[in-house]
């Protein structure tokens, strides 16, 4: 992790994590999930995500992408199969920013550190750094209701980044934003990924967004979700905004789109 104020693992009661199979950050083996009401959301999902990868997950609506992330993060349990996730420092952003409306930006960014028991001075120092990182300096004293949607999302990112996550999950974080803001935040997340080195899992409905951001795009089938295709994206990081207009980029988008169409018909 680059130049962030460090917090001793022992200070905050974190346990060392046993190494995962194959040195991966996330491993799913034959994971199935059936909800108590009988809805079969996932069936036999096999997925391995290496440390430092940035993987996007695309799939038809209702195919179990959120369910997959919730299982990976530990928010939900699964019915069968094995899940290994390095959850020591987990970042998670929801579809909306999920800020506490009664806290200012500063207080919101400090929240997770507060829950982890960081000392106050350390919290302030880290919050200042992360607020700067996402470009919200000067808005520390604003309440969420006075921020734009994009700014709220940034505050939410800063809040997760404050824990220096080594695995960062995003559940359709930018779906509600306009395209310009969305593309800017894409760049910011990729930039953060390159600088902070976290492993990213990014659920999205947008094919260009998936291709632009990821080292790997995973395509899921209709419910019950299975992984039916995995495409490696070879463009080097960090990525340039104009990459979106390269013919090679369009070709990859086309490939993902075809895989998705196949997923919907399959």
């Amino acid at each position, binding site marked *: 992790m680059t130049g962030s104020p460090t917090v001793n693992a022992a200070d905050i009661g974190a346990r060392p994590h046993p190494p995962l199979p194959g040195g991966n950050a996330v491993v799913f083996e034959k994971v199935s999930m059936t909800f108590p009401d009988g809805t079969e959301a996932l069936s036999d999902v096999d997925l391995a995500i290496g440390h430092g990868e940035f993987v996007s997950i695309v799939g038809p609506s209702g195919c179990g992408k959120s369910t997959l992330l919730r299982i990976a*993060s*530990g*928010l939900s349990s699964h019915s069968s199969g094995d899940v290994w996730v390095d959850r020591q420092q*987990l970042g*998670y952003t*929801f579809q*909306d920013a*999920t800020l*506490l*409306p*009664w*806290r200012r930006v500063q207080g919101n960014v400090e*929240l*997770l550190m*507060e*829950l*982890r028991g960081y000392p106050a001075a350390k919290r302030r120092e880290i919050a200042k750094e992360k607020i700067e990182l996402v470009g919200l300096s000067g808005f520390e004293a604003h*309440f*969420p*209701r006075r921020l734009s949607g994009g700014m709220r999302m940034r505050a939410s990112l800063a809040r997760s980044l404050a824990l220096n996550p080594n695995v960062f999950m995003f559940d359709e974080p930018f779906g509600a934003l306009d395209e310009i803001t969305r593309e800017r935040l894409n760049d910011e997340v990729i930039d953060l990924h390159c600088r902070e080195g976290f492993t990213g899992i990014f659920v999205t409905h947008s094919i260009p967004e998936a291709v632009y951001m990821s080292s790997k795009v995973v395509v899921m089938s209709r419910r019950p979700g299975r992984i039916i295709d995995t495409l490696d994206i070879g463009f080097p990081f960090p990525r340039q905004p104009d990459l979106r207009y390269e013919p090679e980029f369009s070709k990859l988008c086309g490939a993902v789109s075809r895989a998705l169409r196949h997923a919907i018909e399959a």
Partner: protein
Amino acid sequence: MSDPIVAAYKSTPLKAQVERYSPVPLAPAPSVGRRLVLSFAPPLILGILIVAAYALIRADLPAHRQFLMPSAEGLWSQAFGIAAFRSELLMRALTTISIAITGLAVSIPVGIMLGIVMFRVYALEKAVFPYLVALQSIPIMAIIPLIQSALGFGFLPKVLIVALFTFFAIPTTLLLGLKSVDRNILELFKLQNASWWVMLRKAALPSAAPTLFAGLRISGSLAVIAAIVSELFFLSGKGGLGQLLMNAKIDFKYEQMYAALIVASALSITVYLSFNWLGNRLFAHWHESSDRQR
């Protein structure tokens, strides 16, 4: 700006079309004077209309029934104009308000605790809620004689009556607020392995606070009424405005009765407005509904 493609695009007549669909500029914010007029004029006008209607109805009454609706001069010469009565009114108002506030000081903490316990233990919510509704639907007036027989005529039974009157709104609004805390916020806490207490303190209670305050406003204005009602049955001792109401009726001093009513409603409004003010101070900066923009 210097991008040639953008420049070329801008120089086409399309610009005019784009402008047609550009957002309409916002109306400027109303001035302070205008806002004051907007907030004070409507209640003032309605008040004047009510006084006028009162005067018209009074003028229509036969002379021997006019005592039911005292005139302004009557109110002054028989009630507010008399120094001794004014100080009596003040003392009694203080008694009433202290009964009301002590009652609230009982019902608010107990109600908040009950709300939290019902939130924590679902079975308890299911068990207690019907009885809360039952308590609310008992005409408390009807059990006042019972309370009197059990607890006598002192301060305590009156406080109990106020507490009973004002209790219902507190656990119910708090529970409603606690239950409607954003699920995602709770999951955020869960991801950090936060304990239930931490979730309650840092997520559920702050998010329920505005709803609870809506309940407190209701309870606050009920408290004064309850304090007055509690006294209608307690005619001995040094009582408050309720006792004055009863005594005035017995003595046919209708002007004094109206004076007591006016002071009582002024007290109620004051309590309501103080809770309102406090709620706005606490929540206006983050809660959507607490400051209404025009």
